[in-house]
Protein backbone atom coordinates (compact mmCIF):
# COMPACT_ATOMS: atom_id res chain seq x y z
CA UNK A 1 0.00 0.00 0.00
CA UNK A 2 1.42 3.36 -1.02
CA UNK A 3 1.88 5.64 1.97
CA UNK A 4 0.99 9.28 1.70
CA UNK A 5 1.30 12.11 4.17
CA UNK A 6 -2.09 12.83 5.67
CA UNK A 7 -1.05 15.14 8.52
CA UNK A 8 1.58 17.81 8.27
CA UNK A 9 2.33 20.22 11.12
CA UNK A 10 4.72 23.13 10.63
CA UNK A 11 5.75 25.36 13.53
CA UNK A 12 2.44 24.72 15.25
CA UNK A 13 1.91 26.83 18.34
CA UNK A 14 -1.13 27.06 20.56
CA UNK A 15 -1.61 29.53 23.37
CA UNK A 16 -4.42 29.70 25.88
CA UNK A 17 -5.31 32.83 27.75
CA UNK A 18 -4.71 32.33 31.44
CA UNK A 19 -5.36 35.19 33.85
CA UNK A 20 -5.23 37.72 31.02
CA UNK A 21 -1.95 36.39 29.58
CA UNK A 22 -1.22 33.93 26.79
CA UNK A 23 -0.01 30.61 28.10
CA UNK A 24 1.80 28.51 25.45
CA UNK A 25 0.67 24.88 25.33
CA UNK A 26 2.27 23.85 22.04
CA UNK A 27 5.55 25.49 21.09
CA UNK A 28 6.46 25.04 17.44
CA UNK A 29 5.54 21.45 16.64
CA UNK A 30 6.76 20.00 13.35
CA UNK A 31 5.42 16.60 12.37
CA UNK A 32 4.50 14.48 9.40
CA UNK A 33 2.15 11.53 9.71
CA UNK A 34 1.51 9.05 6.94
CA UNK A 35 -1.54 7.01 6.11
CA UNK A 36 -1.93 3.61 7.84
CA UNK A 37 0.32 4.59 10.73
CA UNK A 38 -0.46 3.35 14.25
CA UNK A 39 1.18 5.94 16.40
CA UNK A 40 0.89 7.67 19.70
CA UNK A 41 1.66 11.02 21.23
CA UNK A 42 3.06 10.24 24.60
CA UNK A 43 3.59 12.59 27.45
CA UNK A 44 2.60 13.48 30.98
CA UNK A 45 -0.55 15.39 31.85
CA UNK A 46 -0.39 18.98 30.66
CA UNK A 47 2.17 18.26 27.96
CA UNK A 48 -0.28 19.31 25.21
CA UNK A 49 -1.29 15.87 23.84
CA UNK A 50 -5.04 16.47 23.85
CA UNK A 51 -4.65 20.00 22.50
CA UNK A 52 -2.62 18.62 19.61
CA UNK A 53 -5.25 15.97 18.91
CA UNK A 54 -8.06 18.54 19.06
CA UNK A 55 -6.29 20.78 16.55
CA UNK A 56 -5.64 17.87 14.18
CA UNK A 57 -9.31 16.90 14.61
CA UNK A 58 -10.37 20.46 13.66
CA UNK A 59 -12.09 20.93 17.01
CA UNK A 60 -9.64 23.69 17.86
CA UNK A 61 -7.53 26.12 15.84
CA UNK A 62 -3.81 26.73 16.08
CA UNK A 63 -2.55 30.11 17.27
CA UNK A 64 0.27 30.04 14.72
CA UNK A 65 1.81 27.68 12.22
CA UNK A 66 0.37 25.36 9.60
CA UNK A 67 -1.78 22.32 10.23
CA UNK A 68 -2.65 20.36 7.13
CA UNK A 69 -4.95 17.39 7.64
CA UNK A 70 -6.05 15.35 4.63
CA UNK A 71 -5.10 18.25 2.38
CA UNK A 72 -7.16 20.74 4.36
CA UNK A 73 -5.60 23.71 6.11
CA UNK A 74 -7.26 23.60 9.55
CA UNK A 75 -6.73 27.29 10.26
CA UNK A 76 -8.73 28.36 7.24
CA UNK A 77 -11.66 25.95 7.66
CA UNK A 78 -15.00 27.45 8.59
CA UNK A 79 -17.42 25.65 10.97
CA UNK A 80 -19.19 23.88 8.14
CA UNK A 81 -16.06 22.63 6.38
CA UNK A 82 -14.52 21.53 9.66
CA UNK A 83 -17.72 19.62 10.53
CA UNK A 84 -17.65 17.96 7.10
CA UNK A 85 -14.01 16.95 7.55
CA UNK A 86 -14.81 15.36 10.92
CA UNK A 87 -17.98 13.75 9.67
CA UNK A 88 -16.49 12.06 6.60
CA UNK A 89 -12.79 11.56 7.33
CA UNK A 90 -11.98 11.66 11.04
CA UNK A 91 -13.17 9.29 13.75
CA UNK A 92 -12.91 10.16 17.44
CA UNK A 93 -12.47 7.87 20.41
CA UNK A 94 -12.64 9.52 23.81
CA UNK A 95 -11.38 8.57 27.23
CA UNK A 96 -14.89 8.55 28.72
CA UNK A 97 -16.49 7.04 25.61
CA UNK A 98 -18.94 9.93 25.08
CA UNK A 99 -21.73 7.67 23.92
CA UNK A 100 -25.09 9.37 23.53
CA UNK A 101 -27.07 8.03 26.50
CA UNK A 102 -30.57 7.95 25.02
CA UNK A 103 -29.54 6.10 21.86
CA UNK A 104 -29.01 2.36 21.53
CA UNK A 105 -25.65 0.91 20.54
CA UNK A 106 -26.90 0.65 16.96
CA UNK A 107 -28.08 4.28 16.93
CA UNK A 108 -24.84 5.53 18.47
CA UNK A 109 -22.83 3.85 15.74
CA UNK A 110 -25.31 4.93 13.09
CA UNK A 111 -25.14 8.62 14.08
CA UNK A 112 -22.31 9.71 11.77
CA UNK A 113 -23.96 7.97 8.83
CA UNK A 114 -27.23 9.81 9.53
CA UNK A 115 -25.32 13.06 9.14
CA UNK A 116 -23.91 11.75 5.86
CA UNK A 117 -27.47 11.12 4.66
CA UNK A 118 -26.87 7.50 3.70
CA UNK A 119 -29.84 5.29 2.92
CA UNK A 120 -31.35 3.11 5.65
CA UNK A 121 -29.99 -0.03 4.01
CA UNK A 122 -26.49 1.41 3.64
CA UNK A 123 -26.56 2.52 7.25
CA UNK A 124 -27.77 -0.81 8.55
CA UNK A 125 -25.15 -2.77 6.64
CA UNK A 126 -22.33 -0.43 7.69
CA UNK A 127 -23.38 -0.39 11.36
CA UNK A 128 -23.71 -4.17 11.58
CA UNK A 129 -20.32 -4.58 9.92
CA UNK A 130 -18.74 -2.13 12.37
CA UNK A 131 -20.34 -3.90 15.31
CA UNK A 132 -19.04 -7.18 13.95
CA UNK A 133 -15.49 -5.75 13.86
CA UNK A 134 -15.73 -5.02 17.58
CA UNK A 135 -17.76 -8.14 18.44
CA UNK A 136 -20.88 -6.38 19.66
CA UNK A 137 -23.60 -7.38 17.21
CA UNK A 138 -25.63 -9.02 19.97
CA UNK A 139 -25.64 -5.76 21.95
CA UNK A 140 -27.00 -3.61 19.10
CA UNK A 141 -30.27 -2.81 20.83
CA UNK A 142 -28.84 -2.10 24.27
CA UNK A 143 -28.53 1.36 25.74
CA UNK A 144 -25.02 2.51 26.81
CA UNK A 145 -25.91 2.29 30.51
CA UNK A 146 -26.30 -1.48 30.10
CA UNK A 147 -22.73 -1.91 28.82
CA UNK A 148 -19.44 -2.44 30.65
CA UNK A 149 -16.59 0.04 30.21
CA UNK A 150 -14.85 -2.25 27.72
CA UNK A 151 -18.03 -2.72 25.70
CA UNK A 152 -18.70 1.01 25.71
CA UNK A 153 -15.26 1.74 24.33
CA UNK A 154 -15.76 -0.92 21.65
CA UNK A 155 -18.97 0.85 20.67
CA UNK A 156 -16.97 4.08 20.47
CA UNK A 157 -14.47 2.34 18.17
CA UNK A 158 -17.30 1.04 15.99
CA UNK A 159 -18.77 4.57 15.89
CA UNK A 160 -15.40 5.99 14.83
CA UNK A 161 -14.83 3.26 12.22
CA UNK A 162 -18.31 2.93 10.73
CA UNK A 163 -17.76 5.75 8.23
CA UNK A 164 -14.43 4.20 7.09
CA UNK A 165 -12.42 7.31 8.05
CA UNK A 166 -8.87 7.89 6.93
CA UNK A 167 -7.87 8.96 10.42
CA UNK A 168 -8.95 7.94 13.95
CA UNK A 169 -7.97 10.15 16.87
CA UNK A 170 -8.05 8.33 20.20
CA UNK A 171 -7.63 10.46 23.30
CA UNK A 172 -6.49 8.24 26.19
CA UNK A 173 -8.78 5.41 25.03
CA UNK A 174 -7.64 2.95 27.70
CA UNK A 175 -7.53 5.31 30.67
CA UNK A 176 -10.87 4.12 32.02
CA UNK A 177 -10.40 0.43 31.29
CA UNK A 178 -8.88 -2.48 33.17
CA UNK A 179 -5.83 -4.22 31.70
CA UNK A 180 -7.79 -7.04 30.05
CA UNK A 181 -10.23 -4.69 28.34
CA UNK A 182 -7.44 -2.27 27.40
CA UNK A 183 -5.55 -5.03 25.60
CA UNK A 184 -8.70 -6.24 23.85
CA UNK A 185 -9.46 -2.72 22.64
CA UNK A 186 -5.92 -2.15 21.43
CA UNK A 187 -5.88 -5.48 19.60
CA UNK A 188 -9.14 -4.55 17.88
CA UNK A 189 -7.75 -1.18 16.79
CA UNK A 190 -4.50 -2.73 15.62
CA UNK A 191 -6.48 -5.27 13.59
CA UNK A 192 -8.56 -2.51 11.97
CA UNK A 193 -5.39 -0.57 11.21
CA UNK A 194 -3.90 -3.58 9.46
CA UNK A 195 -7.02 -4.65 7.60
CA UNK A 196 -8.49 -1.28 6.63
CA UNK A 197 -5.37 0.85 6.53
CA UNK A 198 -6.86 3.47 8.81
CA UNK A 199 -4.39 5.76 10.56
CA UNK A 200 -4.71 5.63 14.35
CA UNK A 201 -3.29 8.51 16.35
CA UNK A 202 -3.38 8.10 20.14
CA UNK A 203 -2.68 10.47 22.94
CA UNK A 204 -1.62 8.42 25.93
CA UNK A 205 0.65 7.93 28.87
CA UNK A 206 -0.55 4.37 29.41
CA UNK A 207 2.26 1.81 29.29
CA UNK A 208 -0.11 -0.83 27.92
CA UNK A 209 -0.75 1.24 24.79
CA UNK A 210 2.90 1.84 24.05
CA UNK A 211 3.61 -1.81 23.28
CA UNK A 212 1.21 -1.70 20.35
CA UNK A 213 2.46 1.50 18.73
CA UNK A 214 4.59 1.56 15.58
CA UNK A 215 5.65 5.11 16.27
CA UNK A 216 5.93 7.10 19.48
CA UNK A 217 6.09 10.85 19.58
CA UNK A 218 7.14 12.07 22.99
CA UNK A 219 5.77 15.42 23.96
CA UNK A 220 6.98 17.43 26.93
CA UNK A 221 5.92 20.99 27.78
CA UNK A 222 4.57 21.53 24.27
CA UNK A 223 7.70 20.42 22.47
CA UNK A 224 8.40 17.17 20.58
CA UNK A 225 11.11 15.58 22.63
CA UNK A 226 11.53 12.36 20.68
CA UNK A 227 9.99 10.75 17.61
CA UNK A 228 10.68 7.01 17.53
CA UNK A 229 9.58 4.65 14.79
CA UNK A 230 9.43 0.86 15.15
CA UNK A 231 8.88 -1.87 12.64
CA UNK A 232 5.35 -3.24 12.94
Amino acid at each position, binding site marked *: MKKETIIKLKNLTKNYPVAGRDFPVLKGINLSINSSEFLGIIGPSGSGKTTLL*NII*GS*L*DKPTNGEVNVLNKEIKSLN*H*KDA*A*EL*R*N*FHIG*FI*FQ*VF*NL*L*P*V*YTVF*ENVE*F*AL*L*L*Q*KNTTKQRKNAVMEALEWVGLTEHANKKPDKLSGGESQRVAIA*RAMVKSPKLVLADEPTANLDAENAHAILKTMKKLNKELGTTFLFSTHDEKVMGYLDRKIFLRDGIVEKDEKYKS
Partner: protein
Amino acid sequence: MKLEFQLAFKNLFGARLRTLLNVLVLSFSFVIIIFLNSIMDGWDQQAQKDSIEWEFGEGHLIYEKYDPLDPYTILEGHSKIPLNLNGLTPILDHQAFIYPQGRMMSVVLKGIDIRQSVLKIPTHILKQSKESFPVIIGKRLAESAKLNKGDKVQLRWRDAKGTYDANTITIIDIFDSNVPNIDNGKIWIDINKLWQITGLENQASYFIVKDDFNKAAFPYWKFKSKESLLKNLKELIDQKKAGQSFIYGLLLAIALLAIFDTQILSIFRRQKEIGTYIALGMTRLKVVRLFTVEGSVYSILALLVGSIYGVPFFIYMAKSGFPIPPADQKMGIALADVIYPVYGLKLIFSTILTVIISATIVSYLPARKIAKLNPVLALKGKKQ
Protein backbone atom coordinates in the same frame (compact mmCIF):
# COMPACT_ATOMS: atom_id res chain seq x y z
CA MET B 1 -34.40 19.29 9.13
CA LYS B 2 -35.71 15.71 8.95
CA LEU B 3 -32.62 14.52 10.82
CA GLU B 4 -33.11 17.11 13.55
CA PHE B 5 -36.72 15.96 14.00
CA GLN B 6 -35.62 12.30 14.12
CA LEU B 7 -32.96 13.07 16.71
CA ALA B 8 -35.24 15.40 18.68
CA PHE B 9 -37.91 12.70 18.98
CA LYS B 10 -35.28 10.17 20.09
CA ASN B 11 -33.82 12.59 22.65
CA LEU B 12 -37.22 13.51 24.04
CA PHE B 13 -38.45 9.93 24.27
CA GLY B 14 -35.15 9.06 25.92
CA ALA B 15 -35.66 11.80 28.53
CA ARG B 16 -38.94 10.13 29.66
CA LEU B 17 -40.22 11.86 32.86
CA ARG B 18 -38.86 15.31 31.96
CA THR B 19 -40.55 15.10 28.58
CA LEU B 20 -43.76 13.70 30.04
CA LEU B 21 -44.11 16.55 32.54
CA ASN B 22 -43.44 19.27 29.96
CA VAL B 23 -45.78 17.66 27.48
CA LEU B 24 -48.56 17.29 30.07
CA VAL B 25 -48.35 20.94 31.14
CA LEU B 26 -48.29 22.14 27.54
CA SER B 27 -51.13 19.82 26.48
CA PHE B 28 -53.21 21.19 29.35
CA SER B 29 -52.65 24.68 27.96
CA PHE B 30 -53.72 23.48 24.52
CA VAL B 31 -56.97 22.01 25.84
CA ILE B 32 -57.79 24.96 28.09
CA ILE B 33 -57.09 27.57 25.39
CA ILE B 34 -59.26 25.76 22.86
CA PHE B 35 -62.00 25.11 25.41
CA LEU B 36 -62.17 28.67 26.78
CA ASN B 37 -62.18 30.13 23.29
CA SER B 38 -64.78 27.65 22.07
CA ILE B 39 -67.05 28.62 24.97
CA MET B 40 -66.65 32.29 24.04
CA ASP B 41 -67.33 31.51 20.39
CA GLY B 42 -70.33 29.42 21.43
CA TRP B 43 -71.64 32.27 23.53
CA ASP B 44 -71.01 34.71 20.69
CA GLN B 45 -72.96 32.58 18.21
CA GLN B 46 -75.77 31.80 20.66
CA ALA B 47 -76.10 35.44 21.77
CA GLN B 48 -76.19 36.68 18.18
CA LYS B 49 -78.72 34.04 17.13
CA ASP B 50 -80.98 34.72 20.14
CA SER B 51 -80.72 38.49 19.75
CA ILE B 52 -81.72 38.25 16.07
CA GLU B 53 -84.54 35.81 16.74
CA TRP B 54 -85.96 37.57 19.81
CA GLU B 55 -85.11 41.23 19.41
CA PHE B 56 -83.47 42.45 16.22
CA GLY B 57 -84.91 40.53 13.29
CA GLU B 58 -83.09 41.79 10.20
CA GLY B 59 -82.75 45.23 11.78
CA HIS B 60 -84.70 48.09 13.39
CA LEU B 61 -86.28 51.04 11.66
CA ILE B 62 -86.41 53.60 14.47
CA TYR B 63 -88.27 56.90 14.57
CA GLU B 64 -85.68 59.67 14.40
CA LYS B 65 -86.67 61.20 17.76
CA TYR B 66 -86.54 57.89 19.56
CA ASP B 67 -83.45 56.50 21.23
CA PRO B 68 -84.17 53.09 22.81
CA LEU B 69 -81.27 53.67 25.22
CA ASP B 70 -82.64 57.05 26.42
CA PRO B 71 -85.88 56.77 28.45
CA TYR B 72 -86.50 60.52 28.14
CA THR B 73 -87.20 60.07 24.41
CA ILE B 74 -90.05 57.58 24.93
CA LEU B 75 -92.69 60.29 25.40
CA GLU B 76 -92.08 61.95 22.04
CA GLY B 77 -90.37 59.04 20.36
CA HIS B 78 -93.19 57.78 18.17
CA SER B 79 -94.82 58.73 14.92
CA LYS B 80 -97.64 57.79 12.53
CA ILE B 81 -97.08 54.50 10.77
CA PRO B 82 -96.54 55.15 7.06
CA LEU B 83 -98.57 53.24 4.49
CA ASN B 84 -97.31 50.08 2.77
CA LEU B 85 -95.52 48.46 5.70
CA ASN B 86 -94.55 45.42 3.61
CA GLY B 87 -93.15 42.99 6.16
CA LEU B 88 -92.36 45.55 8.87
CA THR B 89 -93.62 44.80 12.38
CA PRO B 90 -94.53 47.98 14.29
CA ILE B 91 -93.68 48.31 17.99
CA LEU B 92 -94.82 51.15 20.20
CA ASP B 93 -92.98 51.76 23.49
CA HIS B 94 -94.86 53.51 26.29
CA GLN B 95 -93.93 54.28 29.89
CA ALA B 96 -96.09 52.74 32.63
CA PHE B 97 -96.09 51.40 36.19
CA ILE B 98 -97.24 48.15 37.71
CA TYR B 99 -98.01 47.51 41.36
CA PRO B 100 -97.12 43.91 42.16
CA GLN B 101 -97.87 43.16 45.80
CA GLY B 102 -98.38 46.82 46.54
CA ARG B 103 -94.99 48.11 45.39
CA MET B 104 -94.49 50.29 42.33
CA MET B 105 -92.33 49.19 39.42
CA SER B 106 -91.52 51.19 36.36
CA VAL B 107 -92.09 49.25 33.16
CA VAL B 108 -92.19 49.80 29.43
CA LEU B 109 -95.34 48.71 27.68
CA LYS B 110 -94.42 47.26 24.34
CA GLY B 111 -97.28 47.20 21.90
CA ILE B 112 -96.66 44.74 19.09
CA ASP B 113 -98.61 43.48 16.13
CA ILE B 114 -99.77 40.15 17.50
CA ARG B 115 -99.84 38.60 14.02
CA GLN B 116 -96.08 39.00 13.70
CA SER B 117 -93.83 36.02 13.11
CA VAL B 118 -90.50 37.80 12.74
CA LEU B 119 -89.64 37.58 16.46
CA LYS B 120 -89.93 34.51 18.65
CA ILE B 121 -91.96 36.39 21.27
CA PRO B 122 -95.16 34.29 21.58
CA THR B 123 -97.56 37.12 20.66
CA HIS B 124 -100.06 34.68 19.14
CA ILE B 125 -101.08 33.82 22.72
CA LEU B 126 -102.41 37.37 23.08
CA LYS B 127 -104.68 36.75 20.11
CA GLN B 128 -106.11 33.58 21.61
CA SER B 129 -106.71 35.00 25.10
CA LYS B 130 -110.21 35.74 26.37
CA GLU B 131 -108.97 38.01 29.17
CA SER B 132 -110.01 41.68 28.94
CA PHE B 133 -106.42 42.97 29.26
CA PRO B 134 -104.02 40.14 28.45
CA VAL B 135 -100.25 40.67 28.53
CA ILE B 136 -97.17 38.49 28.30
CA ILE B 137 -93.90 38.98 30.16
CA GLY B 138 -90.49 37.33 30.29
CA LYS B 139 -89.11 35.14 33.07
CA ARG B 140 -86.84 37.88 34.43
CA LEU B 141 -89.65 40.39 35.03
CA ALA B 142 -91.81 37.58 36.39
CA GLU B 143 -89.09 36.73 38.85
CA SER B 144 -88.30 40.31 39.91
CA ALA B 145 -92.00 41.24 40.25
CA LYS B 146 -92.88 37.82 41.70
CA LEU B 147 -95.58 37.33 39.09
CA ASN B 148 -96.86 34.00 37.83
CA LYS B 149 -98.90 32.93 34.86
CA GLY B 150 -102.56 33.87 35.46
CA ASP B 151 -101.72 36.61 38.00
CA LYS B 152 -103.50 39.93 37.78
CA VAL B 153 -101.71 43.14 38.57
CA GLN B 154 -102.55 46.82 38.52
CA LEU B 155 -101.18 48.87 35.58
CA ARG B 156 -101.04 52.68 35.48
CA TRP B 157 -100.10 54.83 32.49
CA ARG B 158 -100.58 58.26 31.00
CA ASP B 159 -102.45 58.68 27.77
CA ALA B 160 -101.52 60.95 24.86
CA LYS B 161 -102.95 63.97 26.68
CA GLY B 162 -101.06 63.25 29.90
CA THR B 163 -104.02 61.94 31.82
CA TYR B 164 -103.32 59.09 34.20
CA ASP B 165 -105.35 55.94 33.67
CA ALA B 166 -105.19 52.49 35.23
CA ASN B 167 -106.46 48.97 34.66
CA THR B 168 -105.84 45.42 35.76
CA ILE B 169 -103.74 43.31 33.45
CA THR B 170 -103.61 39.53 33.36
CA ILE B 171 -100.31 37.68 32.85
CA ILE B 172 -101.40 35.05 30.36
CA ASP B 173 -97.94 33.72 29.59
CA ILE B 174 -94.37 33.94 30.80
CA PHE B 175 -91.88 33.32 28.03
CA ASP B 176 -88.33 32.09 28.43
CA SER B 177 -85.80 34.00 26.41
CA ASN B 178 -82.03 34.41 26.73
CA VAL B 179 -82.30 38.06 25.69
CA PRO B 180 -82.76 40.25 28.78
CA ASN B 181 -83.47 43.38 26.75
CA ILE B 182 -86.93 42.19 25.74
CA ASP B 183 -87.66 40.85 29.21
CA ASN B 184 -86.38 43.05 32.06
CA GLY B 185 -89.09 45.63 32.81
CA LYS B 186 -90.96 44.95 29.56
CA ILE B 187 -94.66 44.09 29.23
CA TRP B 188 -95.84 42.95 25.81
CA ILE B 189 -99.39 43.73 24.72
CA ASP B 190 -101.37 43.92 21.51
CA ILE B 191 -100.44 47.19 19.75
CA ASN B 192 -104.13 47.82 19.02
CA LYS B 193 -104.86 47.66 22.74
CA LEU B 194 -101.98 50.07 23.46
CA TRP B 195 -103.25 52.49 20.82
CA GLN B 196 -106.67 52.29 22.36
CA ILE B 197 -105.65 52.94 25.98
CA THR B 198 -103.15 55.69 25.18
CA GLY B 199 -104.93 57.40 22.30
CA LEU B 200 -101.75 57.07 20.24
CA GLU B 201 -103.69 55.68 17.30
CA ASN B 202 -101.58 54.15 14.51
CA GLN B 203 -98.30 55.22 16.14
CA ALA B 204 -95.01 53.26 16.42
CA SER B 205 -91.62 53.86 18.00
CA TYR B 206 -89.81 51.50 15.70
CA PHE B 207 -90.29 48.60 13.31
CA ILE B 208 -88.75 45.18 13.18
CA VAL B 209 -87.46 44.62 9.67
CA LYS B 210 -87.93 41.19 8.19
CA ASP B 211 -86.91 41.53 4.57
CA ASP B 212 -85.79 44.33 2.36
CA PHE B 213 -88.01 47.42 2.39
CA ASN B 214 -88.30 50.73 0.60
CA LYS B 215 -86.24 53.16 2.69
CA ALA B 216 -87.51 56.14 0.72
CA ALA B 217 -91.00 55.62 2.15
CA PHE B 218 -89.65 56.29 5.65
CA PRO B 219 -87.90 59.68 5.53
CA TYR B 220 -88.09 60.30 9.30
CA TRP B 221 -87.04 56.85 10.36
CA LYS B 222 -83.46 55.71 10.71
CA PHE B 223 -82.48 52.18 9.76
CA LYS B 224 -80.15 50.13 11.97
CA SER B 225 -79.08 46.84 10.46
CA LYS B 226 -78.83 43.77 12.63
CA GLU B 227 -75.04 44.01 12.31
CA SER B 228 -75.00 47.50 13.83
CA LEU B 229 -77.47 46.43 16.53
CA LEU B 230 -75.21 43.48 17.36
CA LYS B 231 -72.16 45.73 17.55
CA ASN B 232 -72.43 46.37 21.29
CA LEU B 233 -72.88 42.70 21.99
CA LYS B 234 -69.89 41.78 19.86
CA GLU B 235 -67.78 44.43 21.56
CA LEU B 236 -68.77 43.10 24.95
CA ILE B 237 -67.91 39.54 23.98
CA ASP B 238 -64.61 40.66 22.47
CA GLN B 239 -63.84 42.46 25.70
CA LYS B 240 -64.63 39.31 27.68
CA LYS B 241 -62.45 37.32 25.29
CA ALA B 242 -59.57 39.70 25.85
CA GLY B 243 -60.01 39.34 29.61
CA GLN B 244 -60.04 35.59 29.30
CA SER B 245 -56.97 35.57 27.07
CA PHE B 246 -55.07 36.75 30.14
CA ILE B 247 -55.92 33.48 31.90
CA TYR B 248 -54.80 31.24 29.08
CA GLY B 249 -51.87 33.53 28.36
CA LEU B 250 -50.78 32.86 31.92
CA LEU B 251 -51.27 29.12 31.45
CA LEU B 252 -49.29 29.16 28.25
CA ALA B 253 -46.57 31.23 29.91
CA ILE B 254 -46.23 28.62 32.67
CA ALA B 255 -45.93 25.83 30.09
CA LEU B 256 -43.43 27.81 28.01
CA LEU B 257 -41.44 28.64 31.12
CA ALA B 258 -41.17 24.90 31.81
CA ILE B 259 -39.80 24.38 28.29
CA PHE B 260 -37.44 27.34 28.64
CA ASP B 261 -36.13 26.00 31.95
CA THR B 262 -35.70 22.53 30.48
CA GLN B 263 -33.77 23.96 27.55
CA ILE B 264 -31.49 26.01 29.81
CA LEU B 265 -30.89 22.96 31.98
CA SER B 266 -30.37 20.75 28.93
CA ILE B 267 -27.74 23.02 27.45
CA PHE B 268 -26.05 23.26 30.84
CA ARG B 269 -26.15 19.52 31.57
CA ARG B 270 -25.69 18.15 28.06
CA GLN B 271 -22.42 19.93 27.25
CA LYS B 272 -20.57 16.65 26.71
CA GLU B 273 -23.34 15.50 24.38
CA ILE B 274 -23.17 18.79 22.46
CA GLY B 275 -19.38 18.40 22.17
CA THR B 276 -19.86 14.83 20.92
CA TYR B 277 -22.36 15.97 18.28
CA ILE B 278 -19.85 18.51 17.03
CA ALA B 279 -16.97 16.00 17.12
CA LEU B 280 -19.06 13.52 15.12
CA GLY B 281 -19.53 16.11 12.41
CA MET B 282 -22.62 18.12 13.26
CA THR B 283 -22.29 21.82 12.54
CA ARG B 284 -23.04 24.14 15.45
CA LEU B 285 -25.99 25.46 13.51
CA LYS B 286 -27.38 21.95 13.28
CA VAL B 287 -26.95 21.46 17.01
CA VAL B 288 -28.76 24.77 17.65
CA ARG B 289 -31.48 23.56 15.32
CA LEU B 290 -31.65 20.20 17.07
CA PHE B 291 -32.21 21.82 20.47
CA THR B 292 -34.74 24.26 19.01
CA VAL B 293 -36.59 21.44 17.31
CA GLU B 294 -36.60 19.52 20.60
CA GLY B 295 -38.54 22.42 22.12
CA SER B 296 -40.95 22.50 19.19
CA VAL B 297 -41.44 18.76 19.41
CA TYR B 298 -42.73 19.28 22.96
CA SER B 299 -45.60 21.21 21.44
CA ILE B 300 -46.23 18.51 18.81
CA LEU B 301 -46.26 15.81 21.49
CA ALA B 302 -48.47 18.05 23.63
CA LEU B 303 -50.86 18.32 20.71
CA LEU B 304 -51.03 14.53 20.45
CA VAL B 305 -51.40 14.00 24.20
CA GLY B 306 -53.91 16.86 24.42
CA SER B 307 -55.92 15.21 21.64
CA ILE B 308 -56.10 11.96 23.59
CA TYR B 309 -57.98 13.48 26.52
CA GLY B 310 -59.05 16.76 24.92
CA VAL B 311 -61.05 15.43 21.98
CA PRO B 312 -63.37 13.22 24.12
CA PHE B 313 -63.74 16.16 26.53
CA PHE B 314 -64.59 18.55 23.68
CA ILE B 315 -67.13 16.09 22.24
CA TYR B 316 -68.71 15.64 25.66
CA MET B 317 -68.92 19.40 26.20
CA ALA B 318 -70.33 19.94 22.70
CA LYS B 319 -73.15 17.54 23.57
CA SER B 320 -73.85 18.48 27.18
CA GLY B 321 -72.88 22.18 27.00
CA PHE B 322 -71.44 24.40 29.69
CA PRO B 323 -74.03 25.37 32.33
CA ILE B 324 -74.12 29.05 33.25
CA PRO B 325 -74.96 29.81 36.89
CA PRO B 326 -78.22 31.81 37.33
CA ALA B 327 -76.32 34.77 38.81
CA ASP B 328 -74.32 35.18 35.60
CA GLN B 329 -77.51 35.21 33.54
CA LYS B 330 -78.61 38.41 35.27
CA MET B 331 -75.69 40.35 33.79
CA GLY B 332 -78.04 42.00 31.29
CA ILE B 333 -76.57 40.37 28.22
CA ALA B 334 -77.88 37.55 26.09
CA LEU B 335 -76.65 34.50 27.94
CA ALA B 336 -78.28 31.08 27.77
CA ASP B 337 -78.63 28.63 30.68
CA VAL B 338 -76.25 26.33 28.83
CA ILE B 339 -73.62 27.44 26.34
CA TYR B 340 -72.54 24.96 23.71
CA PRO B 341 -68.89 25.38 22.69
CA VAL B 342 -68.11 25.95 19.03
CA TYR B 343 -64.83 24.48 17.78
CA GLY B 344 -63.96 26.35 14.61
CA LEU B 345 -61.04 25.40 12.38
CA LYS B 346 -59.68 28.93 12.76
CA LEU B 347 -59.67 28.57 16.55
CA ILE B 348 -57.97 25.16 16.48
CA PHE B 349 -55.34 26.06 13.91
CA SER B 350 -54.55 29.44 15.44
CA THR B 351 -54.12 27.78 18.87
CA ILE B 352 -51.85 25.09 17.42
CA LEU B 353 -49.78 27.68 15.58
CA THR B 354 -49.55 29.96 18.64
CA VAL B 355 -48.34 27.14 20.88
CA ILE B 356 -45.88 25.68 18.34
CA ILE B 357 -44.41 29.06 17.41
CA SER B 358 -44.06 30.23 21.00
CA ALA B 359 -42.54 26.86 22.05
CA THR B 360 -40.06 27.16 19.19
CA ILE B 361 -39.11 30.71 20.17
CA VAL B 362 -38.54 29.87 23.83
CA SER B 363 -36.47 26.87 22.76
CA TYR B 364 -34.39 28.87 20.32
CA LEU B 365 -33.49 31.61 22.81
CA PRO B 366 -31.36 29.42 25.10
CA ALA B 367 -30.20 27.20 22.20
CA ARG B 368 -28.44 30.18 20.58
CA LYS B 369 -25.77 29.81 23.26
CA ILE B 370 -24.62 26.56 21.64
CA ALA B 371 -23.30 28.48 18.65
CA LYS B 372 -20.75 30.09 20.96
CA LEU B 373 -19.71 26.97 22.86
CA ASN B 374 -16.13 25.82 22.65
CA PRO B 375 -16.42 22.16 21.52
CA VAL B 376 -13.18 21.19 23.27
CA LEU B 377 -14.49 22.39 26.63
CA ALA B 378 -17.94 20.97 25.83
CA LEU B 379 -16.40 17.52 25.21
CA LYS B 380 -14.84 17.65 28.64
CA GLY B 381 -18.23 18.58 30.07
CA LYS B 382 -16.92 21.90 31.38
CA LYS B 383 -19.69 24.40 32.07
CA GLN B 384 -19.42 27.44 29.83
